């Protein structure tokens, strides 16, 4: 099969690799019909997530048709159409039973590596480095899905792939980001980052009763989506007259946002001196993350507010004003998304027409175009908001030779 492989920092190639096979009794093999590039894949592309190996197959947002199931898979059969969550969970451990699915005890074959770095290991993820399990990802034509009784959700309607594909990660991730923000009626929520997760967090914040959402980004096309589709008030932080913390104070009656959502994570961009300091330190590996958004959110958030962090962080942070967080008595919630908890209710929201998740798709490509698109998205060119891949097309409109 053809698969998108990470071959080193800023080096993505499409290779022909062996097809996956059933290894364990709860495995299923999926023929992938649609897959996508996630903003968090850019952290891999840029080399900021440790434990990547040349040859690793990327991709954790995918859906498809069940091709084959292992002997103990009872709720799926060949031909079923499913969306697969990006986290892999056993469904039966202490954490899965408490709806903390992304903290599953039993799915990471490389738990030793995660324990060394983090103390304990969370669940494995598809196509997201070896510290997260080393599973082959879904930017490919086929994928092995472990614990197929637990993860994949069947799509039994005629909605097109593009409307349900994002149940695999970004819609639940944005939704959990909003749910973690502890939103009460009348609240104002500030969202940093209007990429896919940020946009879904904005939409979800309104679903959860927010009075107003303020969105912060620098790209006109994203800010436009945040305004026009999601109904946010937008702040362009690169506007020379804008000081973000002051802007948020002015917009919230001098109180500050009740909740802040960091949908940016470890590779925050900043046009300030401190932002350049981070960039330099990270590039010489003195710092794993550029926590600029966290610093700003600690300052901006109202006293006693809630900070929710769906953006990905990888390691030790630098120059964090923890005194601000303590002094204002804020609450924080974060982590990989507990996917299995959200997929069914969010599928229902799509079926009922409350949201059309395909609104943010900007590019539709074939598999051979993927390496170029990683670069284009990383360099923030061509107004990319979301890239969807048909792995059976070389270039869009050109069927693969058999």
């Amino acid at each position, binding site marked *: *099969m053809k*698969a998108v*492989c990470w*071959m*080193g920092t800023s080096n993505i*190639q499409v*290779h022909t*690799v*062996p*097809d*996956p*096979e*059933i*290894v*364990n*009794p*709860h*495995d299923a093999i999926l023929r992938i019909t649609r897959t996508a590039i996630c903003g968090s894949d850019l952290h891999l592309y840029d080399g900021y997530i440790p*434990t990547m*190996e*040349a*040859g*690793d*197959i990327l991709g954790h947002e995918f859906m498809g048709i069940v091709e084959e199931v*292992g*002997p*103990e898979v009872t709720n799926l059969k060949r031909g079923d159409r499913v969306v697969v969550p990006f986290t*892999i969970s*056993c*469904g*039966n*451990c*202490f954490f899965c*039973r408490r709806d903390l699915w992304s903290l599953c*005890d*039993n*799915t*990471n*074959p*490389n*738990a*030793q*590596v995660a324990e060394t770095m983090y103390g304990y290991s969370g669940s*494995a993820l598809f196509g997201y480095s*070896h510290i997260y*399990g*080393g*599973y*082959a990802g879904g930017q*490919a034509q086929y994928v*092995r899905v*472990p*614990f197929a009784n637990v993860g994949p959700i069947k799509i039994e309607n005629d909605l097109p792939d593009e409307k349900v594909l994002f149940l695999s990660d970004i819609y639940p991730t944005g939704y959990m980001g909003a749910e973690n923000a502890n939103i009460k009626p009348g609240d104002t929520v500030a969202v940093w980052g209007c990429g896919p997760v940020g946009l879904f967090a904005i939409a979800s914040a309104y679903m959860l009763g927010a009075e107003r959402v303020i969105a912060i980004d620098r790209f006109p096309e994203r800010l436009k989506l945040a305004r026009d589709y999601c109904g946010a008030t937008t702040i362009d932080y690169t506007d020379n007259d804008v000081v973000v913390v002051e802007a948020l104070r002015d917009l919230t009656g001098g109180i500050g946002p009740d909740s802040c959502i960091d949908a940016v994570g470890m590779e925050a961009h900043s046009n300030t001196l401190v932002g350049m300091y981070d960039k330099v330190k990270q590039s010489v590996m003195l710092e794993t993350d550029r926590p600029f958004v966290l610093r700003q959110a600690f300052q901006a958030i109202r006293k006693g507010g809630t900070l929710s962090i769906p953006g990905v962080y990888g390691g030790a942070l630098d120059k964090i004003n923890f005194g601000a967080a303590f002094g204002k008595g804020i609450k924080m919630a974060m982590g990989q998304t507990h996917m299995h908890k959200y997929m069914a209710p969010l599928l229902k929201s799509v079926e009922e027409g409350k949201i059309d998740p395909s609104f943010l798709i900007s590019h539709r490509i074939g598999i051979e175009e993927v390496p170029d698109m990683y670069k284009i998205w990383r360099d923030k060119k061509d107004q990319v908001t979301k890239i969807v891949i048909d792995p059976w097309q070389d270039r869009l409109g050109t069927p693969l030779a058999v």
Partner: protein
Amino acid sequence: MPEHVSRLDTSLPVFPAGSGKGAVFSPLPQDTKDGKMRAHAVQTILSDPHTLYSLWRDVTAAPRWMEYVVSTEVKSPTITHWVMGNPDHPEGPRVEYDTEIYEDVPGERIAWRSLDPTVHEAGEVIFSPGPGDRGTVVVLQETMAVPGSKLGVAVAGLTKRTPRQIVIEDLRHFKQMVEAGEIPNVTRDPHGPRGIIGGFKERLYGENNPTPPGTGVAQ
């Protein structure tokens, strides 16, 4: 007891996770000053002590979830013959020896030791009810003489896993078998060309350590 076998300290310290309140934590011994390596692992497993005891006591199933066990043969109710090595390398080195279970309390404890004077290995596993509805706290501890013994040399030559890590992984695999019904395995996942650095990292991250098959489908 044979002279060469160092009997484990059978009075295992009470863990903070146990029932004791107001107790002083005393760590399990793990010094290597006497040339012996001691390792321990602790897991809470969602099952009852008797079920877990029975699964552990079935030594014929050990190759399915213990690392570097090629095969076992039951010679008597308490004596087992072990063939140790890398099951993925049929031509690789092997160490064979007998162990004897010298303490066997159903639902509570199993302790064993090597009967071979050239292989220093002894261990015990203890099952105790966990707090609330959390199942069973399982403590595994083993002592081996490394690196002088045949076992130590064989293990060191086969893997980047330290013997201590093998003890941790064995108990993890046991938990995965019980709770998840299988041992997660990526050793047969497809990938593109690794190249020199990728191949080095593959070893570094332990992916050429053999994953025991668990309930896996035969290759």
